[in-house]
């Protein structure tokens, strides 16, 4: 059990000085283990404030590397970090900020193969990911492992924050993400930050709200967002709050046990492992020159960047989801902005007799690669 010595006391003195907080709350923080999944726009401010506040053990899960377009919002990283793993860079920066706490970096993608083992090592989980597959996977894993989940997500100028799956003093478990949105939406229903754009300040605000809820949950001060969801609008500063009720029917949507969880298909990529192939830029460039091959852009009309470097046709997702085109070529190469919508298109177009390929990272990555 972590205790306060002279040095750590001084470090946390200004929050210990708060009457509602005091030494007791500080010791609770020092003896809590928090797992932060996603060290991006939300994860960075969450991590920075939790490390500064003295959460005793912090785990960071992220399989991504730092890119230049991350830096306007992912404030733990510097220009010299480009190309380096986020989990490791974040851990390094946080350890410098606070050498008195333990930080574990996991440079890996959270999947249903590793989620339960990772989560079971921690007391609280924080979801700072950027896709529905991960959000549902984390929600279900937290239910199976009985861990409270701090949730935050954003869309353009708005952000949502809530605490899911918290257990109260009477052993009653609060509402979870599936009480709000029971079924996982398809990824293309909502554009990602890459596609929709995002203000760095918004991820900062929402990330700090998440860190604040985490501290409240651990220390028992204030009223945490349990059985509640807030939506913050950064353009007009309005906060909408709604109650969420834990429903019996939601239980039917959660995998019954760990085995069922590991067998469940959360990501479109898992689901379609055998029906289409994710390819990198080199393979894309090689395949586009093969015979009997067609390249299709599934972005909507008018989306940028305009592609003129290779021959292709445009069939927007909005049309593909309504009417299936007849394609005679055997090899179908698909791309979109960042590779998410085209993965869904690949799923729709694959019919067993053709070979469907999805450009991983989308046209943005392809263009960046050509400029090197």
């Amino acid at each position, binding site marked *: 059990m972590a205790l306060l010595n002279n040095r750590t006391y001084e470090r946390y003195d200004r929050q210990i000085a708060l009457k509602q907080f005091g030494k007791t709350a500080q010791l609770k923080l020092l003896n809590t283990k928090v797992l932060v999944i996603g060290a991006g726009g*939300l*994860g960075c401010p969450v991590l920075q404030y939790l490390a500064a506040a003295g959460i005793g053990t912090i785990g960071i899960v992220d399989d991504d590397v730092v890119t230049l377009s991350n830096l306007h919002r992912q404030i733990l990283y510097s220009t010299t970090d480009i190309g380096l793993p986020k989990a490791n860079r974040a851990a390094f920066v946080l350890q410098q900020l606070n050498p008195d706490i333990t930080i574990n970096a996991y440079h890996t993608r959270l999947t249903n193969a590793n989620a339960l083992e990772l989560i079971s090592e921690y007391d609280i989980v924080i979801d700072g990911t*950027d896709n529905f597959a991960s959000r549902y996977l984390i929600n279900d894993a937290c239910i199976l492992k009985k861990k409270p989940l701090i949730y935050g*997500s954003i869309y353009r100028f708005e952000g949502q924050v809530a605490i899911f799956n918290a257990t109260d003093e009477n052993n009653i478990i609060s509402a979870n993400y599936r009480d709000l949105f029971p079924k996982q939406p398809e990824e293309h229903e909502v554009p990602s930050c890459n596609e929709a754009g995002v203000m760095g300040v918004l991820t900062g605000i929402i990330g700090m709200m998440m860190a604040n809820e985490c501290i409240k949950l651990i220390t028992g001060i204030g009223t945490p967002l349990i059985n509640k969801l807030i939506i913050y609008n950064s353009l007009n500063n309005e906060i*909408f709050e709604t*109650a969420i009720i834990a429903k019996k029917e939601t239980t039917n949507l959660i995998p019954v046990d760990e085995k069922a969880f590991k067998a469940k298909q959360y990501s479109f990529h898992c689901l379609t492992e055998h029906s289409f192939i994710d390819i990198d830029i080199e393979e894309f460039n090689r395949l586009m020159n093969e015979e009997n091959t067609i390249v299709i852009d599934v972005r909507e009309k008018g989306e940028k960047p305009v592609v003129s470097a290779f021959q292709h046709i445009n069939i927007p997702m909005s049309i593909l*989801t309504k009417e299936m085109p007849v394609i005679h070529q055997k090899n179908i190469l698909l791309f979109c902005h960042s590779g998410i919508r085209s993965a869904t298109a690949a799923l729709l177009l694959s019919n067993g007799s053709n070979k469907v390929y999805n450009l991983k990272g989308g046209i943005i990555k392809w263009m960046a690669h050509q400029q090197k």
Partner: protein
Amino acid sequence: MQITVSTFGQLAELTSPKIIVSDVADTVMLQQKLEEKYPCLQNITYAITVDKKIIAINTAINAASSVALLPPFSGG
């Protein structure tokens, strides 16, 4: 009787931040009217709140009800 429905995120962009709907007595009727007006809602995930509570079953509404449509956000 008119009801003003607030929307958020992508729903506000696809429909309107405030939608005025007339002559609806419950949330099932409301949903039908909204989907007639905005067919895109048929293919989109959203939750309905009445008086700041997420509803799971058909719920009566009146002119004094505050109704909102919440879409899931995935960004981070």
